[in-house]
């Protein structure tokens, strides 16, 4: 397997924003790791939470399901959650499932 396909996660916090960069393949295999990483960040309601997908190569329904649960948790706390830099192949899946407007809503309004 190419090294670049390995799932990696990096969190950057600055000026009231928390940006999570995920790269590689976001699938069933890394679901538990991703859930655990996102859980504390979801609680930080004084910060905007953004997921940057620039280097993401692949996502499956498990990954999309995690995005949905983060979105719902943030929404319940009236805190923002957006996804940015969505690659075309992943954007296609988001569009198919209908999740795109939920993930990019705040970006469009601002």
């Amino acid at each position: 397997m190419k090294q670049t396909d390995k799932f990696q996660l990096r969190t950057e916090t600055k000026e009231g924003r928390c940006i999570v960069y995920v790269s590689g393949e976001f699938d069933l295999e890394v679901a538990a790791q991703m859930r655990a990483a996102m859980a504390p960040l979801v609680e930080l309601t004084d910060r905007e939470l953004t997921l940057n997908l620039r280097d993401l190569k692949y996502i499956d329904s498990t990954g999309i399901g995690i995005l949905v649960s983060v979105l719902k948790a943030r929404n319940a706390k009236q805190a923002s959650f957006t996804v940015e830099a969505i690659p075309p192949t992943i954007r296609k899946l988001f569009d198919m499932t209908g999740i795109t407007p939920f993930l990019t809503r705040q970006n469009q309004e601002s």
Partner: protein
Amino acid sequence: MNAHEEQVTLEVPATAEYVDLVRITLYGIAAKMGFTFEEIEDMKVAVSEACNNAVLHAYGNPPTGTTSQAPAIQPKMEIRFIKKEDALSIIVKDEGQSFDAMAVAPQSSPLHGKSISEINAGGLGLYLMQALMDQVEVHSEEGTQVILTKRLVRSEETA
């Protein structure tokens, strides 16, 4: 079996860490057959969803009516790639409990036109398989068998 068909069979443990190996194998076979990058990406997602189901069946839903002992044999899944003249079929077979019949019913785009509190990611895997492949069949007898088919559309030049 048709004389023009060729098969490649992969048998791997039914665990999440082997699903990427299935994707790599699929990529090799589909690229050789002349599928486009986009078609291969579509198939990668669909086949992975079928494998995810097999993994979840193996570990998520232990069959009822048995003792509580851990299985003596590690659950496996079998992925059969059937190369046809004008299509590629991928059969993903597991030994687990059968699919929920409800989940097999065709669905419309699950998240479209809903509010955040209404959306739910359940059934997305099957929805994606149906949206990304030309044909999806699910058979549940002993274990579950998912048959995914993508037609090969050759360009005018190479036909």
